[in-house]
């Protein structure tokens, strides 16, 4: 856990803080647990949109599949939740992989619409498949995870999952796969010419993101102990995506920041009905003011401040290299920073 993984270190600190403030009261505990679960689902949306360029509106559906599979296994068959976790990771991953094999050849807009259609189909299926999902009534009495019955224990489990997700995400982006993804996002034809197998890489990416969302659904089901079609619906998919976009989908910690901001600020709203107005308005404003999300915006601000200082040539180069490591995938901003560094050099 050296300086090569700054995002994981930050996430670890945030996770420990979240676990530390949780025992302050029941409301705090509930808020931190739900924020953690949402952060995990939104991280999965950020993974697919920010790194693979697939605007997936099915993350809520993947989470719902994870939640339902563990719910069915533990209530009907009495199996351990850990067996449920296996299925909750596998089923969404398989579905996402199959979808991505077909979808990754299509333009972005068609991909987004196809994932949205899939999410709607999953939701309709959950509403109507009475013998398995319990239809509109849903499944109640999902047992808590053995050893994590206490709220604060469960909270730690949730944040361990989030930190693990961030660690894996950062490792991925530091690897050859991550570099391949960055080329694909920048220019697909170039990626093909460089010998990157575009479709398999993207499919694996969406499958990973589906599994991550499935894990979020698994945690959700065992925390709420009740699962119905309305719990993780299309609205959940959209808000997960929205949190990722607000925070900065190209940055590893962007979705987490977005979840914190929207979820906590959303608690201050006068009425539950206003949530859609707040979320929709936030999305539009962010898209116009800070297209790269809040992290992208602050990153750009820092760059501008740095450029204003009369830097020595060597120092400018070092600054560009430093920004290159903190920005995970936004090749555009990195390229821009490099260009600025070159201009500043003579």
């Amino acid at each position, binding site marked *: 856990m050296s300086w090569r993984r700054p995002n994981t270190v930050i996430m670890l600190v945030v996770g420990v803080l979240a676990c530390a403030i949780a025992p302050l009261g029941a409301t705090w505990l509930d808020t931190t647990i739900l924020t953690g679960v949402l952060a995990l689902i939104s991280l999965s949306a950020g993974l697919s949109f920010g790194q693979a360029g697939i*605007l997936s509106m099915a993350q809520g559906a993947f989470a719902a599949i994870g939640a339902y599979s563990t719910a069915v296994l533990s209530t009907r068959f009495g199996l351990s939740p850990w067996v449920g976790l296996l299925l909750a990771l596998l089923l969404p991953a398989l579905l996402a992989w199959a979808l991505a094999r*077909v*979808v990754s*050849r*299509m*333009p*972005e*807009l*068609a991909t*987004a*619409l*196809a994932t*949205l*259609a*899939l999410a*709607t*189909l999953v939701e*309709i*299926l959950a*509403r*109507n*498949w009475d013998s398995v999902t319990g239809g509109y009534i849903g499944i109640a009495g999902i047992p808590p995870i053995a050893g994590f019955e206490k709220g604060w224990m469960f909270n730690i489990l949730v944040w361990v999952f989030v930190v693990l997700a961030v660690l894996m995400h950062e490792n991925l982006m530091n690897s050859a796969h991550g570099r391949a993804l960055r080329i694909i996002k920048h*220019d*697909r*034809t170039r990626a093909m010419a460089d010998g990157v197998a575009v479709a398999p890489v993207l499919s694996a990416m969406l499958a990973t993101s589906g599994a991550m969302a499935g894990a979020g659904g698994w945690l959700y089901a065992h925390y709420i102990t009740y699962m119905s079609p309305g719990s993780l619906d*299309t609205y959940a998919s*959209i808000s997960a*995506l*929205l949190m990722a*976009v607000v925070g900065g989908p190209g940055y590893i910690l962007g979705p987490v920041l977005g979840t914190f901001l929207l979820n906590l600020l959303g608690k201050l709203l006068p*009425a539950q*009905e*206003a*949530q*859609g*107005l*707040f*979320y*929709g*308005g*936030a*999305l*539009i404003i962010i*898209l*116009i003011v800070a*297209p790269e999300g809040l992290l992208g915006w602050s990153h750009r601000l820092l760059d501008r401040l740095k450029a204003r200082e009369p830097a020595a040539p060597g120092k400018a180069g070092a600054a560009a290299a430093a920004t290159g490591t903190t920005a995970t995938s936004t090749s555009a901003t990195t390229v821009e920073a490099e260009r600025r560094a070159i201009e500043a050099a003579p």
Partner: protein
Amino acid sequence: MLEYIIRGLLNGSVYALLALPMTLFFTTAATVDFAIGAYALLAAALATAVPGLLGIAVGLLGAVGASIVMCIVYVLLKRANKEGIRVALASFGLSLALSSIVLMVWGTKPFVRQTFTTMWEIGGFRLNPQGILNMLVAVLLVISAWQVLQRTQLGRMMRAAAANAQGAELAAIPVIGVQCATIVAGGLLGGIAGLLILYSSGLDFTASLGLTFVGFASAIIFGIQSPLRCLAGGLAIGVIEALSAGYTTGMVTSMVPSLFMLIVLLSGQLGGSRYSGDRP
């Protein structure tokens, strides 16, 4: 059987009306306005608040006003030179916000109004006159949209903006202006569709996304190129929906629009050639 088909045709004409703005906007700006269903919802909600004919006018004005908001967002995004997917996302945000406003002001009660209390009997079938009216309005609007596209100066500018935005710009066509006009026209058409639904089957605050969906499915089922195809698409979806409502379970019926959309998208109907080798 025949009754289901006729009922499907009548329902489908409204879907065609929702599909029309999708087609127009997609062909002029190559992106999707997800807020069409929300314009329809807003128009219906406003129309119930004000009695009589004035309500219709207020509803349409509301829908057009909402689409002007979308217009401003579109121009701002376009100025930052953002690709179509961000416009689609922003319209999603607008749709969320509009639904939330309707929920805040009007609550969860469904909106429905009946103008005709009697049913017409034609050749043994019982038909709601409202259905016939919906059909007439839809066919009239689709055909006039087609005529505008084919015959008028505006239509030529729209087609030019669609075919080659840069070239159209060089030929002194205000491309952004044409696209904005399309968004506002979409608001108007969405509003009309919302009013027709209000007077026939009714809707509630959750309807906006479903309506957008049905409209988009109808727009792409036969290809997204021309208004006449979206009329055919809307009618086809309506008939299939009515038939599956008659012969299968409710689950299949509610799946029809998304299922069709998925199938058509997977078969690569929507600009499938873009990633097969040429640079975007």
